[in-house]
């Protein structure tokens, strides 16, 4: 009784069904129903709202603080242009930004602003922020102050608090991305959709890049405006789509399945996990054995972004050279007066076929030519074989196709 157990155990040991993309969308619905508050969209909206409140609060407080201090110090007064400002304060806030690569994935394609060193990115155009602050009266200084910022080059010797940024490589949509902030203050990532994400000092940000476009990394200036230092692009991969016929095409005598890939780039194919050498957009796969097949195709576009698609196909019968199982040598219908497996008449394949009489094991016919089929004559006696009796045929192919068994056999009844 152990046999049947082993038989089932062996056949089901690594049984795996193909992945169905729809299954995940169904699963997502269940997860959403369970945790309605955790969807990404809501998280972003909530995050954005919190951030907006924080920024507003910070702006309000810092503006008041700054204004008070500046009123007390009144560093320098210059002749104002002809505008409504009574006092104009010029604050030189020299910042030279020296950017050092901390990421091993430093790209060579730096922005023009950056000079490439082995490990360092140096900002060649440092910035000076020129602030025009209205100081009409003491009471007005309690209110938030709105300022305009101008960026001008900074002298080299005016170095203060350098910031370090690594330049990420361009990425593909939906890839994971990690960025470390080696600085002592927060830096920010600006998404293509203008969402701003803070990366705290000495911390890392791990995200999934699910928006395509330009991602910028930088800081906020005193006016809480974002200043980019490095950026990278996220590309959407070109889509590949497969279509397959829903039947095997035996036109060439082979069990061929044609699969077309719609893609602008060379295609890498796999058949049940095995790589196929061909790379064209339309491939024929010979599916000899009964069973499930999964054909996958993947491409990489110019940005190196990969996409893949797959089709599955079930073959219901083993391929056996498309041989009939009966023939009638004396029939008036000439199509059925001889025996030759149909596939051998279509395939240009060298072979040897023998017919065996199972009652005595004698070889009663042999041929190596598809144009010389068995007409029912026993070559040992020169007579027609008995009616309503089964004979065994066996074919050996000299050069079987890849993945094909060189031997085929079956039975043929002479009617």
């Amino acid at each position, binding site marked *: *009784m152990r046999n*049947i157990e082993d038989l*089932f155990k062996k056949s089901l040991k690594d*049984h795996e069904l193909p*992945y*169905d993309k729809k*299954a995940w969308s169904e699963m*997502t619905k269940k997860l959403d129903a369970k945790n309605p508050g*955790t969807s990404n969209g809501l998280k972003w909206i909530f995050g954005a709202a919190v951030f907006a409140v924080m920024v507003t609060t910070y702006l309000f407080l810092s503006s008041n603080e700054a204004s008070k201090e500046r009123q007390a110090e009144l560093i320098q007064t210059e002749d104002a242009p002809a505008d409504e400002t009574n006092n104009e304060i010029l604050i030189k806030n020299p910042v030279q930004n020296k950017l050092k690569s901390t990421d091993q994935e430093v790209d060579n394609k730096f922005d023009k602003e950056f000079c490439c060193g082995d490990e360092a990115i140096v900002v060649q155009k440092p910035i000076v922020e020129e602030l025009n602050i209205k100081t009409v009266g003491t009471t007005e200084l309690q209110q938030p102050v709105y300022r305009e910022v101008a960026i001008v080059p900074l002298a080299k010797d005016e170095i203060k608090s350098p910031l370090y940024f690594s330049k990420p490589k361009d990425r593909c949509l939906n890839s994971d991305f990690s960025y470390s902030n080696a600085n002592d203050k927060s830096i920010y990532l600006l998404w293509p959709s203008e969402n701003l994400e803070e990366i705290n000092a000495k911390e890392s940000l791990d995200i999934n890049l699910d928006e395509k476009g330009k991602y910028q990394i930088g800081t906020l200036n005193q006016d809480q405006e974002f200043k980019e230092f490095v950026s990278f692009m996220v590309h959407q991969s070109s889509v590949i789509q497969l279509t397959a016929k829903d039947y095997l095409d035996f036109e060439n005598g082979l069990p061929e399945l044609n699969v077309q890939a719609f893609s602008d780039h060379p295609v890498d194919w796999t058949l049940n996990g095995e790589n196929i050498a061909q790379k064209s957009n339309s491939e024929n796969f010979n599916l000899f054995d009964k069973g499930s097949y999964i054909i996958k195709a993947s491409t990489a576009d110019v940005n190196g972004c990969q996409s893949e698609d797959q089709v599955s196909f079930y073959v219901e019968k083993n391929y056996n050279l498309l041989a009939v199982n009966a023939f009638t040598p004396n029939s008036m219908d000439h199509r059925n007066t001889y025996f030759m497996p149909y596939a051998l008449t279509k395939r240009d394949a060298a072979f040897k076929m023998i017919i065996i009489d199972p009652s005595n094991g004698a070889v009663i016919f042999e041929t190596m030519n598809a144009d010389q089929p068995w007409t029912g004559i026993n070559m040992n006696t020169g007579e027609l074989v008995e009616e309503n009796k089964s004979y065994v045929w066996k074919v050996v192919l000299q050069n079987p196709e890849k993945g094909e068994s060189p031997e085929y056999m079956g039975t043929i009844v002479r009617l």
Partner: protein
Amino acid sequence: MENIEKLKEIVEGCLQNKRRSQEALFQMFYGKMLAVCMRYISDQDTAQEVLQEGFIKIFDKLEVFDFKGSFEGWVRRIVVNTAIDSIRKAKRAPILKDNDNDFKVEASNEIEENEKIELIELRAEKAVEAIQKLSPAYRTVFNLFVIEDYSHKEIAEMLGISEGTSKSNLSKAKKNLKQILTEEFSNLRE
């Protein structure tokens, strides 16, 4: 083989409720676990639902997994238990008693074809098809004992039946499977 570091990363993401990580875990085990469900539940839609329920439990219980044993084995146990629960619910009663009426093939003749069956190379699809023809009672015990390697004692505890019933169900399941396979192969010969 499980890439333990990658797996840990995915599990970590799942614990933080990250959808991407949950999807990665789902995709990693979907094929194998659906195959498990299909052995217990013959209806594919129901099997899919059971699998989803199983994954909800997996996501819920992930924090208790300590990476000391096989993760796949752990996932599999949850899926199997979910499938058994589902069969139990569907019948609304203790179903896991032997009941010949559930079985569709009449076990009329004693079959002694061990030699023939030994020669058969059984495809997984055919094996599943044959198992699905068994009654839920026979099918469940056969799967648990033969495929999942549970003992009769463990099966009896899991299903709330006696060890004797478990042994009897297994024996009848095997007998019926032999008959199904024999009929299947004689059809092929014709």
